[in-house]
Every structure is written in structure tokens, then in C-alpha cells.
């Protein structure tokens, strides 16, 4: 009885599969897919290029144009540039690690790999990214004495307050990203438990 009913479903399914679909041909689909892939790779590359250019411009601006005079300012600059470089390295490593996740394995195997990747991302997001923001901020505020020699107190206060606002926005944006990825991790863990 149950099998009869299921066979009906199967027939219906096969019938629907043979219906003309409005889907583009496989060739067109592949070309669109490859185009999307190229665009996504280009976007990732652009991210890294923008971060690297920011790093170089900042280094030139702080050391050549501002002509820093005190050791503390150099430490500040070092912290800012160092944390940016660390961020770029982590971004590249994360992309390489994500690209290694193979979808050709069975689902159970894939979920195990994906969970490992997101647990690693959890560490990166949870501790290293926050550490990067903190180090960058300390570096920025270490430049305050140098700024005071160049600008009025009011201008320096505006610069520092402006940075604080940016740091708060950055913190919440990172937090949103972490929550999104951790929710995804939870879903993959549920998926894996459903396979066991």
C-alpha cells in the first residue's frame, strides 16, 4: 500500500523531470557559473589588494609625510601596520583553507571538515581579530602625543573621538560576522549529528 503510493510519487517525479524547463542550457549555465566564479575570485583579490595598498599608503604617510619624531610614535605605527599585515595574512590563509574543503567526499566527511574549518574560524574571529583591533587601536592612540605637536587639542580630540566611533562600529560589525558564522557552525553540527 505504502509502496504503491510511493511509486505514484516516483512516476510523478519522473514525469516532471521530463517537462520542458525554462532553465538555460548546460553550456550557458557553465559559462554563467564560471563568470560568477571569476568575479568572486576577483572580489577576494581586490580585498587583499585594497588592504595591502592601505598598508603601504599608511606606512608612507606616517613615516615620510608626518615625519614621526618619538619612539612611542614608531611603536604606535608598528602596532597599526603589524596588525593590518597580520589581518591580510590571516585573510589569505583562511581563503586557502576554505578552498581545500572538498565537496567530492561524502556528506559525513564533508561536515567533519567544515566543522573543523569553522572551529578554526571561531578562534580567529573570537580572539585574533579582537586582538588585531585592540593592537591597532593602541597603536593609533600612541600617536596622540605626536598629533598634539602638529594640531590643536580640539582637532586631536576630534581625531581620537572619531576613531573611537569607528572602532565601536567595527566591533559590532565583527560581532555580527562572528554570530553569523557561529550559527552556521551550529547548523553544520546539527547536520552531522543527523547523519550519525
Amino acid at each position, binding site marked *: 500500500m505504502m509502496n504503491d503510493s510511493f511509486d505514484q*510519487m516516483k512516476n510523478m517525479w*519522473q514525469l516532471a523531470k521530463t517537462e520542458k524547463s525554462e*532553465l538555460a542550457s548546460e553550456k550557458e*549555465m557553465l559559462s554563467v*557559473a564560471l563568470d560568477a566564479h571569476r568575479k568572486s575570485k576577483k572580489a577576494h583579490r581586490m580585498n587583499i589588494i585594497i588592504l595591502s595598498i592601505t598598508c603601504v599608503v599608511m606606512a608612507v604617510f606616517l613615516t615620510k609625510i608626518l615625519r614621526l619624531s618619538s619612539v612611542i610614535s614608531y611603536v604606535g605605527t608598528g602596532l597599526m601596520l603589524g596588525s593590518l599585515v597580520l589581518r591580510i595574512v590571516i585573510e589569505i590563509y583562511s581563503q586557502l583553507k576554505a578552498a581545500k574543503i572538498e565537496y*567530492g567526499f561524502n*556528506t*559525513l566527511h564533508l561536515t567533519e571538515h567544515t566543522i573543523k574549518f569553522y572551529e578554526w574560524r571561531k578562534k580567529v574571529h573570537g580572539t585574533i581579530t579582537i586582538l588585531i583591533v585592540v593592537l591597532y587601536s593602541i597603536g593609533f592612540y600612541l600617536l596622540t602625543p605626536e598629533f598634539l605637536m602638529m594640531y590643536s587639542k580640539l582637532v586631536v580630540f576630534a581625531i581620537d573621538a572619531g576613531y573611537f566611533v569607528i572602532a565601536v562600529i567595527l566591533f559590532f560589525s565583527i560581532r555580527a560576522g562572528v554570530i553569523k558564522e557561529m550559527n552556521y557552525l551550529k547548523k553544520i553540527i546539527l547536520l552531522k549529528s543527523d547523519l550519525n
Partner: protein
Amino acid sequence: MVFSLCRAYMGGDSDLAKDLTQEVFIKVWKALPDFKGKSSIKTWIYRISVNTCLLHIRDDKHSKSESFNESQINVPDDENNTSQPFKDLYLAINKLKDVDRVIILMVLDELKYSEISSIVGIAEGALRVRIHRIKQQLNEMIKNDE
């Protein structure tokens, strides 16, 4: 094959299914150099399709708890009005758990149990029991909707 699986997994939403199919094509293209021929190319493509569907939950606005309604299902109407039972089938499939959904879609596609087992990584014996349970669930859901 890929599109029909993605469309049914996405509860009949053709636009979402097209995006998902594109994602599958990209993954197949990227993974092709690593294909070792241990399974048939068909099983391998199914594996990538199933994995892409199951892991496509990051931006999925339609989580399991938010079931699809009929208006979202995009099945071409025909003169014999056979699309209604098909919509019912989509709706019933969409009420299943994610893993159960892909398993039953492969059964509907007439894949052997050994192939399904190698795709999802569930032992064949356990898979048989599970498929029996999913069929029961589907039947009950369709009966209740009638």
C-alpha cells in the same frame, strides 16, 4: 539532474535553484582535476550537488521552520492540470529534515541504495531503515493534505 534536485531541495523555487545549480557547476569545475574515478562521474556529481544543497544554509532565508507556501513553488502549469499533485509533493518533501529531503530526492531519482550510502556517508543498513521511515512520513503528510 542537478537542477531538478536543487529545485526540489529549495521547495520548488526555480530562482534559488538556479543559483544553487550554478554553485554546483563551479564546484564540479574546480574539483574536476581531483576526480580520481573511484566512483562513477554521476555519483560524484550527485555527491557535490547534495553537499552543496545541504551546506547552502548560510544565506538561506527559508529555514526548516519557515515552511514554503504554495505561491513560492514555481512549476509550469500544463493543460492536464497535473501540476497540483506535483506542488503537493514539493510541499511534503519540503517539510522533511534537510538530510531526509536529499535522501528521498535521490530515491525518487532512482539511485541505488549503495550509491546513496556512498554519497551521504550513512551505512546501507541504516539507510534502508531511514528511507522506509521517510516514505511513511511522506505518505502521511500527503494523506493529511488531501
